[in-house]
């Protein structure tokens, strides 16, 4: 079997989600090749060649692949696809964007967001916001999979010495042009990479009150998240959302502040190693998943916590 992992990268470095995807590929077993498609992405290609367990790195370096335009990336992967038994990428907004196009153009199903590998054609994946786990089997000749970022332990980023090969397939469909990005400058770790997350919900009452969480987060080296209720209320931007429709996280410590624990929020964080809930409503469902619950007014408890760190 030969497996293609489409790398998640920023042209200079390989993102941690790629190491998780390679781990899933390793669990399937076979020859693992990594595709790095981008513009001026040589450094990312070099980094990919050092990933443990990778036998070959394909680098497609062209303006058509800048900004991961789905139509163009998909056309490239479809061109390479028939050489492989499995095509994998991370369940990121980039992977979710281009991968179903790949599957459709190869006339195969995609299995989204796999959380475990049972065998080469059978996988587990969460459904209904993680309230059920489906074990599914693909009958297609090529298995197209996206991999849940929290489900596999990442492989080592170094130790490998894969050959690097340039790919000169260039497809610019001309269907989509990129205009601009507005990336929030993070002074803290990224949500999906953080080992500690402090999250606020509707109980925060407004966006300004998130400053309380920021102070705690800075002392803990934590990322800041939010529930959908806090995002819907306009307290904070959507990229901070943890949940079924936001980011799926599994840090060592998740501190939920003023979050009631709606099903769709729990879906995004209940695999965290240790969960702390601070909520004044003792009946809030968040306490059912919390390892440590504190029934208290967050506006008293959070400053107190801050002063003790």
């Amino acid at each position: 079997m030969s497996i293609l992992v489409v790398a998640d990268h920023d042209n200079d470095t390989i993102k941690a989600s790629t190491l998780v995807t390679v781990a899933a590929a390793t669990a399937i077993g076979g020859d693992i090749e990594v595709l790095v498609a981008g513009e001026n992405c040589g450094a990312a290609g070099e980094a990919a060649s050092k990933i443990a367990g990778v036998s070959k790195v394909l680098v497609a370096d062209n303006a058509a692949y800048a900004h991961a335009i789905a139509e163009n990336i998909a056309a490239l992967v479809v061109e390479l696809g028939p050489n492989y038994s499995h095509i994998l990428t991370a369940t990121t907004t980039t992977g979710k964007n281009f991968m179903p196009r790949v599957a459709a153009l190869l006339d195969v199903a995609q299995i989204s967001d796999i959380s475990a590998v049972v065998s080469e054609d059978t996988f587990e994946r969460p459904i209904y916001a993680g309230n059920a786990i489906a074990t599914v089997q693909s009958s297609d000749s090529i298995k197209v999979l996206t991999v849940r970022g929290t489900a596999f332990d990442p492989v080592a980023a170094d130790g490998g010495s894969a050959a690097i090969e340039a790919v000169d397939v260039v497809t610019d469909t001309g269907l989509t042009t990129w205009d601009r990005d507005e990336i929030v400058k993070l002074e803290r770790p990224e949500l999906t990479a953080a080992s500690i997350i402090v999250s606020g919900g509707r109980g925060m009452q407004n966006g300004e009150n998130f400053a309380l969480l920021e102070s705690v987060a800075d002392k803990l080296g934590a990322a800041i998240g939010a529930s959908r209720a806090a995002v819907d209320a306009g307290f904070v931007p959507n990229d901070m959302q943890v949940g079924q429709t936001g980011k799926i996280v599994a840090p060592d410590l998740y501190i939920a502040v003023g979050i009631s624990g709606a099903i769709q929020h729990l879906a995004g964080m209940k695999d965290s190693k240790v969960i702390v809930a601070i909520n004044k409503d003792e009946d809030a469902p968040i306490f059912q998943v919390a390892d440590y619950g504190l029934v208290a007014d967050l506006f008293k408890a959070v400053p107190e916590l801050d002063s003790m760190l």
Partner: protein
Amino acid sequence: MKVLVTVKRVVDYNVNVRVLSDNTGVDLNNVKMSVNPFDEIAIEEAVRLKEAGTAEEVVVVSIGTSACQEQIRTALALGADRGILVETDEDMQPLAIAKCMKALIEKEQPGLIITGKQAIDDDNSQTGQMIAALAGLSQATFASELVIGDGTATVTREIDGGLETITVKLPAIVTTDLRLNEPRYASLPNIMKAKKKPIDTYTPADLGVEVAPRVKTLKVTPPAERKAGIIVETVEELVDKLKNEAKVIS
């Protein structure tokens, strides 16, 4: 411009789903079914385009059992003009849905297709992208803003870490994210009016589409349960537990 909107019949988002004890699936008996929330956002966006004079007609499509008519009626009550039901009892997976939609796009020739970014039952997030691929159209997924231009649409997308703005050639597929709009509620007069709006029915065979499932569900199990935690009385106790018992902070 004609706008095609897709709606999926799903378990209502307020329902706490239970896995069947024989592990064949989740319990759907007497469970409230609704329009997938992201598809409600898609309907709203299409209706707003019509109200703004950008779109002339909003056509809503659902694919599944005859019960999906209920969700089509909901969309008609929210302002869609007519419905299409592709009726089948088959387990319709995203690739098969996309093939049906490709056939309908050829028939209807819409200028824009709006779908939800994911359905809250299977959480696949595939169908819009697959429709775009098969129909050879551009796609703008996870949209939080949509501006129709001259033969193009400029779409702001929710991506990891922030926002991205792209311009796609029309016709295109747009999939909706949460902040695109806030869907309205249907008024009683509009619910009554919706009963008279037409719904055309096809079968996948009418559309020349082979819909046999490619993925077989072997079993469905409940997720691993977390062991019960404890309630601490004070912030001091909490910090002590985190430092000395859980050892997650120092």
